[in-house]
């Protein structure tokens, strides 16, 4: 809000001073702006004439200030008339619809079909030039703008509850319009008002410049520019002053309008405001770290930590996360929303938003640390060795390209083959992922396909270059239940067939049991438990894992929801992050817990991991 006040201050101050000058100019004791002094024409700056004299020997400084009066008078009068008439017409049209709507809104639409200056010139032809013509013509020109604003706002306001309530209580229409609708449409009208003031000054000065607006000798900036243009060889400065005055005035009105618009419409402000600074890339030291020879592991992540700079300071949505995925293996990452699952895998792909960056750890994939590869090296891996299936297939395809072309694009990004060959491959991929009528579907637009179909396209795209590792980020969340099962079956099939490893993020523990070899449970940015799926599910060591399992509906027990929610990253607890929601919390839980090894590939982050018996087995006993 403070930034906004600063943005409003300058234009508001400028406009205020202009208005004061315009009002005070007759009392400033300036030389008569229309008195000619031919012997002294075009003389430069002199005492009594600070900006010199024009082609008729008139005082330029005086004419400049009087010109402000003319411009502002015309602009404010015409804009106010347009605002009053347009608002009234628009409100009536929006409220009564029918004939009133036709007369106000449709006629406004037609007037908006004229280029403004052309309509103005038509009016000048009929009425002859002059200030009165200017005001009338500008009012006509700008009334439609207000009609549209008022009409649109009334339409959206009239159906709101409080308006309906007043109608039901028997309030009369003028009363409702005045009391409820008008205050609601005040801010867009104010924006329109400031916008129109600027536009009116542009048209007025333009017409005066053509000699078809303000009639000489009345001082006007447009006329001054017209006059000075003829003498620009002898007195170029005479051209500069009115140009400067005009431009600064219009700029002030435009800036005021922009600031008001942003104040009333936070959405547009967000688009104009600054985004977080792009990071300074710190990845230009590839290969300095020795890579670990994890035999059999295709991906080995150690101590991955991601930080995001936010307005409340730096947060760590992912903190010291380590895991490995063997070739051909499936790792499931589970946890509630906000536990850091997506950020973890997104950082591996190098697709974090600009404000986020991995600050510690390594992620060795096929012998190279993903976190320290250059953007180009990462790009060469993405979509080739390392591919992703997104959460929401509805938004993940580009709506303006045919789906076949988007798959072909993925193939051509990594292999230099001819386009027809790539298209043939795309066709085979469509067939492979079970898209019916694949020849025709290649030329379909995304919006012509169902969610399940689109997810099949995304999968086709992901496996196009036979990746060694597939990352699926909740690939079935956005789909309905029957589709979910089909997509899971497809993924399981593909994995068997291609032997690629899979990282599978999900909320659903049922899916984990079906598809995964190992499971990693995340909570508030940390790994709290991991190990082989069968072993972890049979006997969870961490209360959070046990709680997640208990929350799964099963036919022999009612699901038990976990009380509370994952804390946001800037409010992670000091000690065990799950402790505030944990039924087993004890004093030692107030301290940060390390991840402890329990043999058989099991790791747990819990102070009481040894002494608790958890899971459904414990419940049943």
């Amino acid at each position, binding site marked *: 809000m403070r930034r906004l006040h600063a943005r409003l201050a300058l234009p508001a101050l400028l406009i205020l001073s202009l208005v004061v000058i315009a009002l005070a100019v007759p009392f400033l004791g300036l030389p008569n702006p229309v008195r000619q002094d031919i012997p002294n024409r075009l003389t430069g700056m002199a005492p009594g004439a600070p900006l010199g004299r024009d082609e008729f020997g008139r005082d330029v400084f005086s004419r400049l200030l009087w010109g402000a009066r003319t411009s502002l008078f015309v602009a404010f009068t015409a804009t106010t008339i347009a605002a009053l008439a347009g608002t009234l017409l628009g409100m009536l049209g929006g409220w009564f619809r029918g004939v009133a709507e036709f007369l106000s809104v*449709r006629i406004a*639409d*037609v007037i908006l*079909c*004229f*280029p*403004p*200056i052309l*309509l103005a*010139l*038509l009016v*000048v*032809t*009929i009425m*002859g030039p002059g200030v009165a013509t200017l005001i009338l013509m500008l009012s006509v020109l700008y009334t439609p703008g207000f009609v549209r604003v008022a009409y649109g706002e009334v339409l959206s306001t009239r159906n709101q509850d409080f308006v309906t309530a007043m109608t039901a209580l028997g309030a009369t229409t003028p009363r409702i319009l005045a009391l409820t609708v008008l205050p609601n449409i005040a801010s867009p009208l104010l924006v329109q008002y400031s916008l129109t003031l*600027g536009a009116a000054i542009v048209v007025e000065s*333009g017409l005066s*410049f*053509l*000699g*078809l607006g303000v009639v000489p000798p009345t001082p006007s900036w447009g006329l001054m*520019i017209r006059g000075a243009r003829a003498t*620009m*060889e002898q007195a*170029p400065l005479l*051209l*500069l002053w009115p*140009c400067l005055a*005009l*431009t*600064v005035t*219009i*700029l002030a009105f*435009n*800036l005021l309008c922009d600031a008001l618009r942003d104040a009333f419409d936070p959405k*547009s402000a967000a*688009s*104009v405001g600054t985004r977080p*600074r*792009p990071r300074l890339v710190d990845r230009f030291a590839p290969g300095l770290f020795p890579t670990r020879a994890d035999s059999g592991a295709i991906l080995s992540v150690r101590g991955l930590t991601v930080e995001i700079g936010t307005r409340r300071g730096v947060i760590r949505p992912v903190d010291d996360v380590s895991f490995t995925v063997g070739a051909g293996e499936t790792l499931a990452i589970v946890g509630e929303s906000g536990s850091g699952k997506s950020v973890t895998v997104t950082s591996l*792909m190098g697709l974090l*938003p600009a404000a986020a960056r991995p600050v510690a750890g390594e992620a060795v994939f096929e012998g190279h640390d993903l976190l320290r590869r250059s*953007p180009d090296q990462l*790009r*060469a891996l*993405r*979509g080739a060795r390392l591919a992703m299936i*997104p959460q*929401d297939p509805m*938004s*993940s*395809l*580009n*709506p*303006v*390209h045919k789906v076949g072309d988007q798959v072909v*694009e993925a193939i051509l*990004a990594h292999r230099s083959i001819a386009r027809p060959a790539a298209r043939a491959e795309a066709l085979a991929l469509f067939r492979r992922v079970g898209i019916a009528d694949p020849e025709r579907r290649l030329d379909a637009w995304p*919006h012509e396909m169902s969610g399940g179909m689109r997810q099949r396209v995304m999968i086709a*795209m992901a496996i196009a270059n036979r990746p060694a590792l597939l990352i699926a980020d909740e690939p079935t969340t956005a789909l309905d239940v029957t589709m979910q099962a089909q997509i899971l079956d497809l993924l399981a099939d593909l994995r068997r067939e291609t032997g690629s490893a899979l990282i599978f993020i999900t909320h659903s523990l049922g899916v984990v049991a079906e598809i995964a070899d190992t499971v990693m449970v995340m909570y508030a940015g940390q790994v709290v438990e991991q190990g082989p799926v069968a072993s972890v599910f049979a006997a969870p060591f961490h209360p959070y894992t046990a709680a997640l399992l208990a929350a799964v509906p099963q036919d022999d027990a009612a699901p038990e929801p976990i009380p509370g929610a994952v804390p946001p990253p800037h409010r992670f607890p000091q000690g065990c992050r799950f402790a505030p929601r944990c039924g087993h919390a004890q004093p030692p839980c107030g301290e940060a817990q390390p991840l402890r090894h329990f043999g058989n590939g099991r790791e747990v982050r819990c102070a009481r991991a040894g002494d608790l018996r958890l899971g459904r087995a414990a419940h049943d006993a």
Partner: protein
Amino acid sequence: MAYLVGRIASSVVLAFAVATIVFLALHLVPGDPAELLLSTGGISPDPAAVAELRERLGLDRPLHVQYLGFLTGLLRGDLGRSLVDDYSVAAEIALRLPRTLELIAAGTIIALAVGVPAGTYAAVHAGGAFDRIMSGVMALLMAVPVFVLGTLLILLLAQTLKLMPAGGFVPFWRDPGQHLLLLSLPALVIGKGLVAIVFRMTRASVLDILPRDHVRTARAKGLAEGRVLRAHVVRNAFGPVLTVLGLHMGSLLGGTVLVEYVFNWPGLSTPLIRAVEGRDYPMVVGIVLTVSGLFLLINLVVDLLYAALDPRVRAG
């Protein structure tokens, strides 16, 4: 197809309504055009001359007959004859319209060629130095009126630095180089406001598209960043830019009147201004209707282009 037909039909209806408003404006305003035309310096004209002129203009006929005559004339491309020099209005427009169109096309191309890349770069590096500087420059461009910029450029480039002529026109077939040189300044000036609008809209639109999932998909495919921007960001952002472009063509078309005047470009501006000064009704009406029709046509083309760019619009 239904979309195409519907959109064209609505343009035709609007064109008809525009013509009707022009007709009504001329005939329902108090005061007799014939009397106004013949009166000079407040002296009442000779009644016989007024009656003769009324008859020549058809003003003595009933209003609905005049209206029908006006519409059928329009349909046949007959815009009447100038009251001042008896030239055919349609012929005069046919001679000069191409030059105005050339100016508009050049200005639009400049606006797109500068505004789209600059807006995209500013959005990708939002908050950076380029973004801030360009936002300021664009605000200034929006504020300075075309005739001010044109006049100042003449003062600087022609008058002071003697780099180019102050204005004028040479047919392309006679001297292509000189033609383009003379075209460059007015085209720049006419495109200046549009540059700012295209820049702002591109920037906002790209900022809106950048965080979308399909852009992440494009990156996940391993596409080069330039290709991601071209095919998956700017391509998607272009629709709104085009729409805004169409809406602002009105001020661009109006601006040509001033720019042609400033640079002595022999388009529609010269006869229009002369006709307004001389109250040459048929000429004013003809030019106003031509340019308004052009505005409608441009917006029709823009909407159809938008539909071609975005398959979802076509679907309804």
